[in-house]
């Protein structure tokens, strides 16, 4: 996704190494994706579903 658009940055974070972030984002299972500190996606999703979730208006995340 980051490669497809210059506005997007993708960080792969080792949850065990960076415990402070793991606590801050309440990572209780992996993979967990956090977008702009507001959208959270738990688990792996099919590509189309993942992108739809990532592009939802911020604040609508469950």
């Amino acid at each position, binding site marked *: 996704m980051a490669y497809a*658009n210059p506005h997007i940055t993708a960080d792969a974070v080792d949850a065990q190494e960076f415990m402070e972030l793991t606590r801050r984002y309440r990572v209780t299972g992996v993979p967990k994706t956090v977008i702009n500190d507001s959208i959270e996606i738990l688990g792996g999703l099919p590509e189309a579903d993942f992108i739809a979730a990532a592009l939802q208006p911020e604040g609508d995340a469950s």
Partner: protein
Amino acid sequence: MPLLSPQDRQTLTQHLAPITKSVDLLLFTQTFGGTESGLVAKQVLDEVASLHEKISVVEKNFVLDTEDKAKYGVDKAPAVVVLGDGQDTRIRMYGANTGYEFVSLVEAVLLAGTGNLELEPESVAALAAVDKPMRIQVFSTPT
């Protein structure tokens, strides 16, 4: 002792064979106050770089190389910034890159070295509409 077995090396060499662009892996570590994972990350990257002549590892000091840290937005270490043909792919790997993270690293290297997006055309079209900064953080564990 190598992390990759001879069989792993053979499989990965074939997987990375399509690479035609130079791939620079910028590794940010810190000598003092750093964790052992920085050393592991270095070994992982060195072994990956040995699989293809176009792949290089460039070591950066997380404390001293403040200009590059700011340029690439690196805020913790160990960190790997993936460049393809000298251009930032905006893909970052934080941690030692072992286990499942290793798969992500290899795929990021392949993408940077080939420019071949694996996304569906519909996904690429949807992502083209993003017009403001989007930071995606994916948390995972090595095992």
